[in-house]
């Protein structure tokens, strides 16, 4: 205990020194700002040279698509293969009527999970049908099936390799990190340029996002196999292949099942973004509804997505099949699992045949549709009217009090002053090397000629992060110190983290209409759960003997939080800030869909209007650079701790599961 106290003391002192340095930097920056305001600004121009050049690249690609060998022999065939797969799966699913699909889904849940889950699954799918979104759901299912299949086909072997080979793990980890901090938005435009708009681009975009967790979790699973067991197998003369097939894979089966589950959830969470490149389905329904500000329709589609997510999650969560009881009790009945599986198979077959005979290829009967859009719209209108005063006050307060001043400072300072300040912060909280990376990233943003929009996006990020951290730390500390609060917050956090990100846009949109404040609110709601979880875990992790010692020394409750628990949980706070920043950025950018201007909107319009292609690509790269910069500044000193919870529920839907930093 004494040595713990000894190591805490100087570290805390060090961070006080840093706070002083940061304050000094802030004062210097403000003085320089007052003196230099208006000089060296970089106002946005829609016809800047970079954008035009990028448009030129697009024109060149369009012109050479059918002749250039790279396109003809490599990219073209990839695209054709994925499009073909898409066609096959689509026609398979539409061959089976809705009755057949219900039967198959129910049978899977019955055979591999429980009869209760089977009922839940059938109920959820029926509800989707009743909401009138059956066709869209099938389209979404096709996209998910294809991208998940490809993600696993590539991801699991790579994960196995990374699990068995330290060098490969070291090689692939930074690549996975990069794939995960890169906002999905950023690679859509280049993808459509290469693979055109359509299933191939959507599948590959989803794959880039959903594959990293598959690789990471598989690798963790393989690495989790006890060395003694592997050694015992080797001592019996097992070959490498035998060790893999008979020891590592079977023991890691559960974890790999989790990888499958996570990959599906990740894929689901970006279908709305995939819809931006014309992937049909529920995502498209949401985009269209949002564009037309039809709140009710958007929420209906959102509900369908959440139901679909639940169905897929429940069926695959125990897909590994391990640890299932051999005999299942259904009420007073005791049924052996094997019998249950046969029953399930029968249900599936009868459902498929019956469905095909009764209504071959037909969709869910339209006569049964129930629309909830109208009452929802009415309710929203009522809320808008009733609370207009409150919401407007909040919106205007934050805008005038936080957003506008920060944005003014960032956009009217000389660009080099902003870069110097950012690099200074990175140098103080992190290292000189981080400062160099930050400076380079910002200079590249200048060169891309997206400076002003980047600063606007940065403003929203800063405000969102400040709010997120304030709320997250308060709730996290509270939950760590109070059992009841923790018990209430945990399930909410877990549920919140399984929801696809854009779901958070909807309530914010309903309350505040299309403004940048909506994006900020959505970003805060989206990121707070992860921060709360990390802060709570960190504060809880403080050794009880230290707490005891501090209590014995007469610390008050506030002193305990400020002087013991927060400083000692500093590591977790740094990780929480880092995660918070990455999540916030992803959401703020997505806010481009709901009226937040700046880089996110540039990217969105890049897809829809040919002229803005160049601006969209530049903005996308700008987003990546902003991400790198923010990540570097908030990485903090010392090694980043791996977020172990990722293998549990934490990682779901997160944009940045930095699992397995250990090796």
């Amino acid at each position, binding site marked *: 205990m004494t040595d713990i106290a000894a190591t805490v003391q100087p570290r805390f002192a060090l961070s006080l020194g840093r706070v002083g340095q940061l304050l000094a930097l802030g004062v210097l920056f403000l003085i320089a700002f007052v003196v230099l305001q208006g000089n060296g600004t970089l106002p946005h121009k829609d016809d800047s040279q970079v954008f035009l050049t990028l448009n030129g690249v697009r024109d060149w690609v369009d012109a050479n698509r059918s002749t250039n060998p790279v396109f003809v022999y490599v990219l073209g065939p990839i695209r054709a293969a994925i499009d073909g797969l898409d066609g096959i799966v689509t026609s398979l699913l539409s061959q089976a009527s809705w009755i057949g699909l219900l039967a198959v889904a129910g049978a899977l849940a019955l055979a591999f999970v429980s009869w209760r889950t089977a009922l839940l699954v059938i109920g959820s799918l029926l509800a989707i049908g009743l909401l009138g979104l059956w066709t869209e759901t099938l389209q979404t299912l096709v996209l998910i099936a294809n991208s998940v299949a490809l993600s696993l086909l590539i991801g699991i072997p790579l994960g196995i390799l990374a699990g068995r080979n330290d060098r490969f793990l070291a090689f692939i980890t930074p690549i996975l990190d990069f794939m995960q901090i890169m906002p999905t938005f950023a690679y859509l435009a280049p993808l459509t340029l290469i693979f055109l708009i359509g299933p191939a681009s959507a599948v590959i975009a989803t794959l880039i996002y959903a594959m990293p967790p598959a690789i990471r979790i598989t690798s963790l699973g393989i690495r989790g196999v*006890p060395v*003694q*067991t592997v*050694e*015992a*197998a*080797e*001592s*019996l*003369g*097992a*070959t490498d292949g*035998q060790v893999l097939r*008979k*020891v590592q894979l*079977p*023991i890691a*089966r559960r974890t790999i099942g989790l990888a499958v589950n996570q990959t599906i959830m990740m894929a689901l969470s970006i279908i709305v973004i995939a819809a931006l490149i014309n992937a049909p389905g529920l995502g498209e329904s949401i985009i269209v509804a949002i564009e037309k500000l039809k709140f009710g329709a958007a929420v209906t589609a959102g509900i369908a997505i959440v139901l679909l997510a639940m169905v897929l999650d429940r069926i695959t969560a125990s897909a590994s099949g*391990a640890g299932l009881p051999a005999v299942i009790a259904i009420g007073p009945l005791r049924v052996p699992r094997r019998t249950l599986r046969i029953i399930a198979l029968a249900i599936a077959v009868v459902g498929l045949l019956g469905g095909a005979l009764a209504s071959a290829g037909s969709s869910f009967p339209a006569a049964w549709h129930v629309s909830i859009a109208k009452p929802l719209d009415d309710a929203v209108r009522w809320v808008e009217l009733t609370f207009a005063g409150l919401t407007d006050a909040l919106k205007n307060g934050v805008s005038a009090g936080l957003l506008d001043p920060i944005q003014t400072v960032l956009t009217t300072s000389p660009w080099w002053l902003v870069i110097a300040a950012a690099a200074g912060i990175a140098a103080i909280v992190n290292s000189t090397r981080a400062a160099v990376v930050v400076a380079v990233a910002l200079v590249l943003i200048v060169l891309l000629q997206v400076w002003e929009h980047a600063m606007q996006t940065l403003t929203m990020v800063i405000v969102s992060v400040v709010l997120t951290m304030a709320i997250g730390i308060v709730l996290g500390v509270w939950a760590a110190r109070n059992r009841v609060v923790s018990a209430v917050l945990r399930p909410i956090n877990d549920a919140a983290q399984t929801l696809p990100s854009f779901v958070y846009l909807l309530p914010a949109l309903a309350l505040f209409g299309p403004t940048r404040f909506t994006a900020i609110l959505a970003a805060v709601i989206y990121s707070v759960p992860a921060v709360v979880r990390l802060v709570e875990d960190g504060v809880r992790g403080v050794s009880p003997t230290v707490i005891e010692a501090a209590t014995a020394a007469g610390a008050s409750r506030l002193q305990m939080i400020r002087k013991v628990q927060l400083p000692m949980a500093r590591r977790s706070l740094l990780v929480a800030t880092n995660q918070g920043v990455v999540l916030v950025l992803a959401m703020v950018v997505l806010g481009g869909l709901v009226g937040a201007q700046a880089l996110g909107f540039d990217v969105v319009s890049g897809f829809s209007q040919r002229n803005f292609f160049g601006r969209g690509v530049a903005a996308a790269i700008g987003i990546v650079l902003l991400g790198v910069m923010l990540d570097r500044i908030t990485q903090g000193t010392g090694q980043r701790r791996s977020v172990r919870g990722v293998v549990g529920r934490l990682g779901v839907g997160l944009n940045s599961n930095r699992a397995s930093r250990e090796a």
Partner: protein
Amino acid sequence: MTTVAAPPATRPAGKGSPAAGGPTISVRGLWKVFGPAEQRLTRRAGSAAPSADQIEAAVRDHGGTVAVGDVSFDVRPGEVFVVMGLSGSGKSTLVRCLTRLIEPTFGEIDLDGENIRKASQERLRELRRRRFSMVFQNFGLLPHRRVLENIAFGLELRGESKATRLTRADEMLGLVGLDGMAERYPDELSGGQQQRVGLARALAGDPEVMLLDEPFSALDPLIRRDMQNEVIRLHHDLRKTMVFITHDLAEALKLGDHVMIMRAGKIVQIGRPEELVARPADEYVEDFVRDIPKSHVLTLRWVMRPANANDPVDGPVFPVDTIIRMVIHAAAATDKPIRVIEDGQLVGVVDRAHILETVAGQGNDAEVGPPT
């Protein structure tokens, strides 16, 4: 049989009757260095071993640990060779080097005269599958397989048919006393039962040599004693050569034909159990054997004196390898010296007083003489 080893007469092979054809395992100048120093050394030296000083210097300069340092010994066919030493003395590393589960840094290892350092991976696997098997302290069972499948695992690896391997596994199950547990999973067994599975798995392949790395240290004293007796029985019935690692001197003395004591990777002493007790090579070994009652370990050979012409010729007669404890009754019943014979010849006598002294002294000061 409770606390004392099998009586000398039942001790097989190792004692005095080495089979023709050389040792089963022969280790010469074995080194294992962990850490950065290892690569430096092997890169510089190729295969020829540098001197001990050079190796120590490399470890000092570049960092690393000498887990095994210049170890040489022979294990003869059919004997139980015990390796002892404190934690971290390199026992596990040494035994893993024997079949190259850990790649040795320098030195030669011959298994039945075959140079193992030069064997291909394929050849190594063949040896591990058929001739050498290991039992681990932490069992290393496969959690996803039932007991029977665990036992059959080695046979499965070498491609036996399912029927063959399950029949064989079933036999092994009976041999280690686990009848009726075939369908359980490892986590449904007690530690002792799990270790029996480990033992059965090693036995299933009918290996010539078994390497046991502290197989019983996770077990409680009662089960441990059962398992020791089990090993003695198996050794007796099946005549396996065994290399047996333990922390526990009583275990070493009970099981071992020869005992090797290691400290910090080096050999301190190799000898028969009674040699260690009677003549510890240094204080380290002496510390080990301090609490061992000598009368439970030493044989008459260690306490007899040459016979005089005027010694009575009608005292009780015992073979030279009888443990002292076994003659206490006889000695108490007579006041004549005990006559010690070897191969039917009188080789010495032991005075009654001397026996009682040895028993009473419990090994501290009782004088013991050299064996003939």
